[in-house]
């Protein structure tokens, strides 16, 4: 799979924008870690976008606190189509241990549509790379409807 990803990455790079919706920073640190030399996301042509307007993929962490919900929605609207939302971490997937807390909505899909869930607490850098690589492979294989139809 890696070979295909590399080939594909030569044609185009994928811009990811990172959003934290009130998490503990565990997943966020691992996302940053994925960029460091040990894991090195950049060699797959994956770059951190400076703003949602340049993003292809939104990496969202955190259980979504009330205040963050509106912000998350705006960021989603600002991201141009076609876009993908990847919920990184158990909090982003379901709220994790914070589900039921009065200030927490309990998962990214309570606010915006999610294309992929990566559970983990926190998600290891390898798993983050794996998830994005799998996404790239699906795009490559023409399995993503919204790209094919765009």
């Amino acid at each position: 799979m890696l070979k295909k990803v590399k080939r594909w990455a030569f044609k185009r790079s994928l811009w990811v924008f990172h959003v934290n919706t009130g998490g503990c920073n565990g997943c966020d640190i691992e996302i940053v870690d994925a960029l460091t030399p040990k894991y090195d996301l950049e060699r797959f042509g994956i770059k951190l976008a400076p703003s949602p307007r340049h993003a292809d993929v939104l990496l969202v962490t955190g259980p979504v606190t009330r205040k963050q919900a509106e912000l998350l929605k705006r960021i989603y609207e600002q991201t141009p189509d076609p876009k993908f939302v990847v919920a990184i971490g158990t909090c982003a997937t379901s709220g994790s241990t914070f589900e039921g807390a009065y200030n927490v909505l309990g998962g990214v899909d309570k606010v915006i549509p999610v294309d992929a869930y990566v559970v983990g607490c926190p998600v290891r850098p390898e798993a983050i790379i794996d998830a994005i690589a799998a996404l790239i492979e699906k795009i490559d294989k023409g399995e993503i409807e919204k790209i094919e139809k765009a």
Partner: protein
Amino acid sequence: MSSEQKQVSSSQAQSIVEWLKEIGVETEVKVDKYNVAWAEVPMEKIKDSIRILKEKGYRHLTTISGVDLPDEGVMELIYHLAPVKMDGYPLLCLKTRIPRDKPEIETITDIFTVAIVYEREVYDLLGVKFIGHKGLSRILLPRDVPEDYHPLRKK
């Protein structure tokens, strides 16, 4: 904790009792096994008590905890004080009670500046009004929640 340590703590606790007596506050100071002292003073005396304790060396305010006790019709405020460079002196949790139907108390921000933040937190989550605080407003909850929404209150 060794009995020698316990004795040291008891004499320290006695000092605290004496200082409070100086300003007309009669109270018991109990030190637990973990060198944490607990004492309660009436609402009208809490500010003077904190002032004298700071003078005597309890110069660090760790935080202010609020506890809602609806069964007793009160809210309890605990001022967590720590001694600075005072060998053997225990941490001190100084409590006071305020009526639940009128939860107000004088601010201590003129004694401990950092109380600016801790009093706002107790106001936000429990609804206690700190009289004299120059900027009492919510600090954690979104500003658009109803004014009477204080989630740490017991139902």
